[in-house]
């Protein structure tokens, strides 16, 4: 809990409050000008804006604005689209779609970008809907590097940039020299995760086998959470609030837990020793379902917490545009900065909880019975 204490200590004090006010003042003009532009625009759809922001995308939008002549300017970084269709691999930049206006031919079919998804269409680019407005067109096998994937790759690079120098220094100088540079930040985090999370849940002699995995999961989630909180270009992707991201991490924990499960663990699931037969008939299905619900809850917890955080911040900013007045801007900017501080804590907390529960499940599976 050392890290949380330090966060709280940092957050206290007069100097912090001064900085906080300064940030509020700096952000005010942004919010004000955003409010002024609004009168030219048509109806503002807060739900659509929020869904667009928390969803995935084929381009990294940097900024969009209306210039003096009333033209809409969109600056964005196109990302590669990789499609595998009928034994044919096609790689192109997402700018070929021209924001959904143009079709990209692949074999006999065409690809169309429609509501941030790529569909197969005919030459006319028709998108068919059924009664409930869901799209009937087929989707190709899509291996594209989307915004979330790009953000994950960036977090991998950040991790490599921090950890390789630190690891190199450890292998050169050993662990007994005073830490320096990247080591100074790596060492407390690694020791916290190893001693307070992993070794507290898993038996000492087995804990070190799982430390690399759990440490990677902790730092990967943490860095992705923090990147998601950065509101401008290199961050801002809702990677750790994406269900496929959390599904993958939870699946890793599920597989690792079950392949390293001891005899006792499986006996507890399928035999439930020490209970009479009627209870056994009741407990075995429950225990069996429990194998799957544990990683499922792990998946949903991270997804729901991070997505909810993004939605709250965006909703608070949307209040300005929904109320169509600049006078709510101070309130909504103040509240959204408060939520930002909370989300910063949550991004640590969720990484901590994911790692803690993963090591708890692994501990249940591998620990000796005392």
């Amino acid at each position: 809990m050392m890290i949380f204490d330090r966060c709280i200590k940092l957050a206290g004090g007069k100097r912090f409050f001064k900085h906080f006010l300064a940030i509020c003042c700096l952000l005010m003009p942004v919010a004000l000008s955003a409010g002024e532009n609004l009168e030219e625009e048509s109806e503002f759809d807060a739900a659509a804006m929020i869904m667009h922001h928390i969803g995935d995308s084929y381009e990294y939008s940097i900024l969009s604005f209306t210039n003096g002549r009333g033209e809409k300017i969109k600056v964005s970084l196109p990302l590669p689209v990789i499609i595998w269709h009928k034994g044919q691999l096609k790689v192109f930049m997402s700018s070929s779609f021209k924001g959904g206006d143009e079709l990209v031919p692949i074999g006999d079919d065409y690809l169309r970008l429609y509501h941030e998804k790529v569909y197969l269409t005919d030459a006319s680019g028709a998108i068919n809907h059924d009664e409930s407005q869901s799209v009937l067109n087929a989707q190709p096998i899509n291996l594209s590097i989307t915004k979330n994937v790009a953000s994950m790759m960036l977090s991998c690079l950040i991790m490599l940039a921090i950890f390789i120098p630190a690891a190199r220094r450890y292998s050169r100088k050993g662990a007994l020299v005073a830490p320096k540079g990247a080591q100074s930040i790596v060492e407390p985090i690694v020791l916290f995760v190893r001693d307070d999370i992993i070794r507290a849940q898993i038996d000492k002699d087995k804990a070190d086998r799982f430390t690399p995995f759990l440490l990677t999961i902790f730092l990967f989630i943490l860095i992705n959470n923090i990147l998601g909180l950065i509101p401008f270009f290199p961050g801002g992707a809702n990677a750790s609030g994406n269900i496929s991201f959390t599904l993958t991490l939870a699946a890793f924990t599920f597989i690792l837990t079950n392949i390293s499960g001891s005899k006792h663990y499986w006996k507890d699931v399928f035999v439930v020793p020490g209970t009479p037969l009627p209870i056994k008939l009741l407990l075995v299905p429950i225990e069996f379902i429990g194998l799957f619900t544990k990683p499922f809850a792990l998946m949903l917890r991270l997804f729901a917490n991070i997505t909810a955080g993004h939605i709250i911040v965006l909703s608070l900013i949307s209040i300005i545009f929904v109320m169509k007045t600049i006078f709510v801007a101070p309130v909504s900017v103040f509240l959204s900065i408060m939520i930002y501080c909370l989300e910063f804590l949550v991004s640590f907390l969720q990484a901590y909880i994911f790692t803690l529960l993963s090591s708890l499940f692994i501990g249940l599976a591998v620990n000796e019975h005392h």
Partner: protein
Amino acid sequence: MEQISFTALGLGLIIIGVSLGIGKIGQAAMEAMARQPEIASKIQTAMIIIAALIEGAGLFALVLAWLVN
């Protein structure tokens, strides 16, 4: 319309239950920490684990309500 309002009611009930549960854990943990500050960190870990389990149950219900809707 009716179905939507029932979902909203269900979501409200889920949140009531989960917040009651987490609130009780928080209360008990605070009291225990005040009595025995020397094992505060252990209590905190246990508190977070139990809170996470309750939150998991709440999330299940939320997702089910969302899927049924």
